[in-house]
């Protein structure tokens, strides 16, 4: 059946483009705001859930002048300088310390490598407890020019990457951690990284500043019942030039900050919804007024009050669904496209949630849009349905 309530509604939307555009835009903006706030919060909280602590590090030791805690644990670039590997020995001899894993980060620059902005992460073959388990599970042992990739890349095992003039083969992948330098890292053994650094300087390739025996961070794992806070204090007492960040404590601080941010984001999107409800109500009321004659004619030809009511509401639902979908697409594109910019701005990395979450958030957003459409359209719909048919027909004459 070609002619129907839906056909009539669609024709009306098609023929009155200006109004359609206005309503769709209002709903799209509100949907984009809601959708991306929830996505962002979900993304950031999954980063936190997955963070360093998840990888098994209780404390992260960095130079004393390093950045705030949240940024250290989750943050993008480790921008602080290197310090001596010798601290590792001293710290591992402290009480309650079960292991110390040194890590050195080198960010690739323009022209040196297959891509810039990638972290080459050196890890200690013996002492490491963060990366090694994944390597052992997937390939057993790394050969001379093997490397492990972070979760942020689509590389297949066997692909080659060029780092400072040397070709490495990706043989394994570690799962998503939510830590940017990990997720966008290429992991190679620490001694190989020192070798690469020295070679790059000697060959005069874009200089790598890392010297033999230097590291960026020491990841500390404690005995099961140890108190991380007192161990961290002990480290800072003994080495005032270092900073010991307790993973759990730092995370709960970050979570608190996120809570505040979540609230303001939600308040903001509530505001956009309120604006949208008002705007859409006004536009619908205006349009329904314009269409009084049309409703009168439909009534004369046999349309019931219910049909007229349905006509207005169905149109609002179509607009809401369309606006919502467009808004979410825009929001998703924005989050995916400007991931770097947003991470830089928030000083926090994020992992876009998996498909199931995206689907759930989308359904929730569409539901909110439909509720908005209901609120905005019920009164105009009722008024249109209750018009005396002939009064409606002669209006505007």
């Amino acid at each position, binding site marked *: 059946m070609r*002619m129907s309530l839906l056909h009539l509604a669609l024709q009306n939307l098609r*023929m009155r483009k200006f109004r359609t555009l206005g309503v769709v835009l209002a709903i799209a903006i509100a949907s984009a705001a809601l959708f991306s706030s929830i996505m962002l919060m979900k993304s950031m909280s999954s980063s936190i859930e997955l963070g360093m602590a998840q990888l098994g590090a209780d404390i992260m030791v960095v130079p004393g002048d390093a950045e705030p805690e949240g940024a250290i644990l989750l943050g993008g670039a480790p921008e602080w300088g290197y310090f001596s590997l010798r601290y590792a020995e001293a710290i591992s001899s402290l009480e309650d310390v079960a292991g110390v894993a040194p890590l050195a980060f080198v960010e690739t620059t323009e022209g040196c490598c297959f891509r810039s902005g990638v972290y080459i992460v050196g890890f200690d073959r013996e002492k490491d407890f963060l990366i090694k388990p994944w390597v052992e599970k997937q390939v057993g042992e790394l050969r001379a020019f093997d490397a492990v990739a972070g979760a942020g890349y689509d590389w297949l095992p066997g692909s080659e990457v060029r780092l400072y003039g040397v070709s490495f083969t990706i043989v394994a992948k570690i799962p998503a951690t939510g830590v940017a330098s990990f997720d966008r890292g290429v992991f190679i053994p620490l001694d190989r990284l020192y070798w690469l650094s020295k070679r790059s300087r000697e060959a005069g390739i874009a200089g790598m500043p890392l010297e033999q025996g230097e590291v960026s961070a020491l990841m500390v794992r404690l005995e099961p019942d140890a108190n991380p806070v007192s161990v961290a204090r002990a480290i800072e007492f003994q080495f005032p030039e270092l900073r010991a960040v307790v993973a759990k404590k730092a995370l709960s601080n970050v979570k608190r900050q996120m809570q505040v941010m979540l609230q303001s984001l939600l308040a903001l999107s509530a505001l956009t919804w309120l604006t949208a409800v008002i705007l859409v109500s006004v536009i619908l009321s205006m349009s329904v007024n314009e269409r009084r004659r049309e409703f009168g004619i439909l*009534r004369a*030809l*046999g349309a019931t009050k219910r049909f007229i009511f349905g006509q207005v509401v169905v149109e609002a639902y179509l607009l809401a669904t369309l606006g919502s979908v467009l808004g979410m697409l825009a929001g998703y594109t924005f989050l995916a496209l400007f991931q770097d910019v947003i991470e830089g701005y928030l000083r926090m990395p994020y992992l876009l949630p998996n498909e199931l979450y995206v689907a759930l958030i989308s359904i929730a957003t569409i539901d909110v849009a439909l509720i908005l459409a209901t609120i905005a359209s019920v009164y105009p719909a009722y008024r249109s349905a209750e018009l005396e*048919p002939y009064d409606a*027909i002669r209006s505007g004459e």
Partner: protein
Amino acid sequence: MNRVIATERLTKIYNTGGSEIKAVRGVSLRVEKGEFISIVGHSGSGKTTLLSMIGGLTRPTYGRVLIDGVDIWAMSDEELSRFRNRKIGFMFQFSSLISTLTVRDNMLLPAALSGKVEQQHEERALELLERLGLEHRAGAYPAQLSGGEQRRVAVARAFMNRPEIILADEPTGDLDEESEEQVMELLTHMNREEGVTILLVTHNLELAARTRRTLRMRRGRLEER
């Protein structure tokens, strides 16, 4: 003969800003099946209001409208809508096409509102358009037609659901003589061949003279001429 339309002291009073306008005053009209009646009268005398109460579009202040013996203003909205859809064909004084639908879809509206559009409806729409010389405009939107063409489409549409009663409110108001003749021929044809009962409001006394019975509306009252 059986009585199709009967009104009993039908009255409509409009309240506009404190003052009362008695548009129709106690009209009792009887119409037999198959009659073709013309109604003349000055503008403002209440012709349109009377027609629209008979057709179920304006609720009377007092009085009753009986169609085939049934009091239409006692019906539920569903019943009354169905009655308008099945039994009545309206031709309005004002342009009455839906601007967002093509001529063809406008023609199919009465069928669509009664349930389902079928092949026979498409055929009838085309046949009626042909009678008024408009078959080539089926795909056009109302804004692409002249005023006279729009008017004729509305006339054709009134016959879509094979109504028993046609309520025609100055259907030839702004038509040229040729189109006026086409419309008049269609009305006469439907009246003679299909027994459709017709109430025709017109200013044109020549047209009125072509109907069997002419009534005059004067300040809300109806008189035989």
